[in-house]
């Protein structure tokens, strides 16, 4: 942080012979997990309820609730600054929540750190810097399978079948791939953990429309295998078309919640959020 709280106010950060700003994280990796306790039994597979919190003093999330059921595709849309990505991070434990709870598969996991949420079956594909650039495609996927002690070759083959384009480049460093291929590696890496919930933060940002359609097709395929999908999308119309459930977020709170088709049909939503 260069706001002076834990530094010398920008001093010394220019000198690359002593500091390495590349690849620094934003999440405290030293935090250890708290206890998991049983949640309410009849809740959906993922139930993040009444989340409030943000970075620093001002809250970005103001009582936002997101749920996804098994095998569902849920999409979060909304204007810039609505807190969509923040909601994803909060669900993944990358943000301290002031209020609210996150429940996965009947267990309250609010106190878990991100590493342990991965072990509980959550996978997350961030919007940017979502591959390890100096690692090869194959090594990226292996890192996805880091938590697995079983033989993951089958899963890797599945990923390569799903994304044949990157299969050809498995020995190339991921940093040398095109934007669309990188996105595929990123999704593949998350799939390698065999998650039961896959969270995607704007997977189609910066890729061409053809690649976008292809990615959405793949996402539907993934959901058909029983994996729940939660994603944030800029391309709201296309995303809602494939969504079982849609959330429209405004200022960190739910504005509309309905099926994807219903939201697309809602004239209010169309006018305000889908550009007519």
């Amino acid at each position, binding site marked *: 942080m260069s706001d002076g709280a834990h530094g010398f*106010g920008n001093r*010394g950060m*220019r000198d690359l*012979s002593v500091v390495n700003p590349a690849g620094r994280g934003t999440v405290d990796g030293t935090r250890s997990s708290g206890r998991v306790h049983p949640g309410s039994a009849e809740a959906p597979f993922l139930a993040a309820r009444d989340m409030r919190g943000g970075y620093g003093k001002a809250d970005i999330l103001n009582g936002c609730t997101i749920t996804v059921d098994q095998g569902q595709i849920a999409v979060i849309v909304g204007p810039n600054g609505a807190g969509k990505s923040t909601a994803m991070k909060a669900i993944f434990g990358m943000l301290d929540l002031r209020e609210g709870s996150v429940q996965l598969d009947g267990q309250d996991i609010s106190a878990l750190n991100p590493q342990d949420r991965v072990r509980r079956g959550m996978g997350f594909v961030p919007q940017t810097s979502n591959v390890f650039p100096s690692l090869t495609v194959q090594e990226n996927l292996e890192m996805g399978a880091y938590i697995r002690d079983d033989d993951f070759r089958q899963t890797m083959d599945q990923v390569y079948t799903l994304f044949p384009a990157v299969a050809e480049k498995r020995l190339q460093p991921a940093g040398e791939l095109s934007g669309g291929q990188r996105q595929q590696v990123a999704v593949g890496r998350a799939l390698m953990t065999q998650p039961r919930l896959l969270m995607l933060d704007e997977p189609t940002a910066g890729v061409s429309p053809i690649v976008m359609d292809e990615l959405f097709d793949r996402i539907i395929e993934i959901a058909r295998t029983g994996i729940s999908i939660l994603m944030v999308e800029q391309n709201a119309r296309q995303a809602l078309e494939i969504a079982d459930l849609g959330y429209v977020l405004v200022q960190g709170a739910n504005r509309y919640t309905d099926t994807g088709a219903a939201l697309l049909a809602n004239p209010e939503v169309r006018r305000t959020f889908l550009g007519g």
Partner: protein
Amino acid sequence: MSTTRQAESTSLWRAPALLAVLVFLFVLEGTLSNAFFSGSWNSALGILNMGLLSAIMALGVNITWGYAGLFNAGVVGFLALGGLAPVLVATQPVPGAWEAGGPRVLLALAVGLGTLVVATLVAARVPRAWRFWAALLIISVGYVAYRALFDPAVIAIEANNPAKAGNIGGLGLPVLLSWPVGGLLAAGAAWGVGKVALGLRSDYLAIATLGIGEIIVAVMRNEGWLARGVLNFSGIPRPVPYELDLQGDPDFQARVAGWGMDLATASGIWVKLAYAGLFLVIVLLLILLSELALKSPWGRMMRAIRDNEVAAEAMGKDVTRRHLQVFVIGAAVIGIAGAMMVTLDGLLNPSGYNPLRYTFLVWVMVIVGGSGNNWGAVLGAVLIWFLWIKAEVWGPAVMALVTAPMPEGGLRSHLIESAPHMRFLAMGLVLLLVLRFAPRGLIPEK
């Protein structure tokens, strides 16, 4: 930022409080005679004088660090280079030295510098692929020419009265004049290294200064013709009276008798007080100048650059040029301190320039005092210097207490003997504690 405002309200009383603590410590050192304090005003003032010099070094570091955020890891080099000035300016000329090789050395140095300039100019004008080889060729030719001129000249100078002199000799000018000259010498070296290091894609100033620091000290040790190298140069003239002269002066004798003091002690204190006054004036002058500079349009621009370099660059500010300026000024201040230190000691001892003591301890002073705060740098410097000196005494004293229950013998005496080394440990712990619990220093930046 709420923390800044908080700091502003607390820093009002922090500086006077720290000053009071320092005064108290020095009074203890001057009056109390026990295992921890010497009870000698001579010792207290001796510490104070070096403390004030450390304060100037800390100010120099704080200018580059505080205003521009640049990491100078070669303080020791600029300090040593500044120390050359009193020898070159204030000592008496060595008969025959200049005639032996002075002009030739100057010519050789000019050829060396000229080679670098030509190499730079040519490298900038030839196609990319040839750049390296063109520069290499020019520098090789230039280097051979330089050595052909330089080596015989140096041998001639060093052969001139080698037992007593062997150096090029001074100009015999007043020693006070050498202080700004020391600053100029350091500034020149800083300009050279800064021009290269700051011009790279990102600045590599820390490693570049670490290197130049070692090199300058190596030059001072090995180039005997400059200031006798490892043979040391003593007898540098003083701006204040000598103790022996004072003791021989009837007026002074009468006055000391009036105070009821011992003549030797009184003359020592007198001389040290004179130095302290001189140093204090310069410390205050430097603080005044740097505070004025910080409040000037130039200083506002420096702060703007530090806070947001990209924005400043977009507004058309030449960031590299400003950084070079501030780095050169900081080094000049360190150079002045170097000249003053050699004057105080009356001795130039190139082997004594230890980077741990003269680079990193100065950094401890700045961080402990408060990055970016001139008063913090000064008070931090005096405090750290006091602790550094006294820890050497306190270490064995504490160790003797701690090991009191142990039987007399090998281990106990080994522990007590090596206890003076505890001061390195102590300084490390002080720095770590301050970083952890008061990262903005004892007197935070306003």
